[in-house]
């Protein structure tokens, strides 16, 4: 199975490939933006509305504790969401396109 040079141009210009690339970029940039907004939002709250995180939810426990730990978990969950999407949707499309390029 070698690379079919003629097909390369065809694939690169195909709508299927273009769609795949834009889907991938959209998804990863969306997740990137979500992560950055959450993190820098957290930092800005600390900078300007510190007392918001000092609100008590127990005798001493503040809401800042679950939020801080929550951001750590959230970061991990986001990577999980990406993996799920990539394994289910992206890889399937990649396989189809790869087969077209590597055929014949």
């Amino acid at each position, binding site marked *: 199975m070698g*690379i079919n040079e003629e097909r*390369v*141009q065809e*694939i*690169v210009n195909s709508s299927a*490939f273009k769609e*795949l*690339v834009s889907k*991938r*970029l959209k998804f*990863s*940039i969306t*997740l*990137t933006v979500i*992560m*950055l907004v959450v*993190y*820098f939002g*957290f*930092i*800005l709250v*600390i*900078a*300007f509305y*510190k*007392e918001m*995180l*000092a609100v*008590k939810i*127990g*005798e*001493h*426990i*503040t809401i*800042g*504790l679950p939020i*801080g*730990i929550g*951001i*750590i*978990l959230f*970061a*991990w969950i*986001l*990577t*999980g969401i*990406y*993996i799920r999407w*990539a*394994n289910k949707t992206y*890889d399937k499309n*990649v396989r189809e*396109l*790869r087969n077209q*390029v*590597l055929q014949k």
Partner: protein
Amino acid sequence: MENFQSTLGQVNIASIIIFLVFVAITLCITYWAAKKTKTTSEFYAADRSISGFQNGLALSGDYMSAASFLGIAGMVSLKGYDGLIYSIGFLVGWPLVMFLIAEPLRNLGKFTFADVVAFRLKQKPVRIASSFGSLMTIVFYLIAQMVGAGALVTTLFGLPYEIAILIVGLVMISYVLFGGMLATTWVQIIKACLLLGGATLLVIMTLSHFDMNPIKLFEQAADKYTDSVLSPGGFVTNPWDAISLGIALILGTAGLPHILMRFFTVPDAKQARKSVFIATGFIGYFYILTFVIGFGAMVLVGQDVITIFDKGGNMAALLLAESVGGKFFIGFIAAVAFATILAVVAGLTLSGASTLSHDLYVNVIKNGKADEAGEVKVARGATLLIGVLAMVLGLVFKGQNVAFMVGLAFAIAASANFPSLLLSILWKKFTTKGAVASVITGAGLAILLIILSPTVWVDIFKNESAIFPLKNPALFSMTASFLVGIIVSLASPEKEAQNKFEDEKLRTYLGIGAE
């Protein structure tokens, strides 16, 4: 614990034995790995034989330095919640590595991230510039690690500083020199397991004093040191400072050469992706553990005692280990901390050696045409060179305040390595001149501004006030690096690079032609 007595600084037999066992096992692995390390792909990338899960563990091993274990636990023990804010910054870069970098990097590159930056550009100028950014990052990171290692070993074992540097240097050089990436990877994996296991054990033993309920621990901390330890304190005084540090930590993570290099050890992009998921999980878990450890030390050891041993709180985790587990347990945690330093410097050294041999020797001096055996020899020579350099720098900077160098390494990684890497993956019109200008601007500004910043200008040079207001320069140096890269590229269109972008895309997104 009013009359807290610590054995810290005394010779701890348990610690020495555990450390020697670690060194013996890892050297056996190195011996085994050396037999499988003959080609360049084996030396730099473990012949791409590492699984996603293994690489995830190794990545977390590379990232969880002794500084982050002892330093963050110490910060939490003295400042409470503020320590958590700091560790969150270190974690948030990882999802970005996954979304933006990991898969394209794996598909486009061979051994170093400069492979990707130079993919469709002119090899020589881009390789030289990227190597500069890469080596600057590695050298500053290495200095911080070596000086930290020497100081830590002196405190922990009562060994002279110079001997500590010598031990770390020689053992680390043996791993990399003989066992290449395969040995380095397994050292990271073992160290990650030890560190995660040790920290878990420490948390369990600590929580056993609080009915296994972390909330009780936090409440007692608040009782003892007021409620302020459970909410943000003085960490963020200047929002611009916090944002700049955040940028350095997040984008710097995505530009650390020794982290990026690890993605070439897995067979394909799917495994690269998986390894980030695993790494993020373990690193996040680790930061949650260090948070509990910090609070445990605050309550069970006490801030007054912690500051007696180290003003910055760096001994908090060890003192807590002694308080809940006695002399054997502090010995164990101390040995783990030492092993951690060894593993991190090994990773850094391998990455520096690959920059010297693969990027500079092969692709600049030899025009990309070096024979396999020759390149492996050069890579081994480069390992020796970087290893000896690390030891010399460790000795030269003895007793100096080098804590800022980690921040500087992250700032350079975020400003010199990350922008050029991202632009080369995403932007069709990126050019050779743009790449070179972006790297030079990023690295140059990061170094210049940190010298003029309060971190160096005031804290180290003892001037009255700083010329540049922020403690970390990344906000400016990273932005400038992107802007300069974009403007220079637009001013110097490169037809060939644009044409190659389509082929590159096929490889980036489909993995066709990936090594």
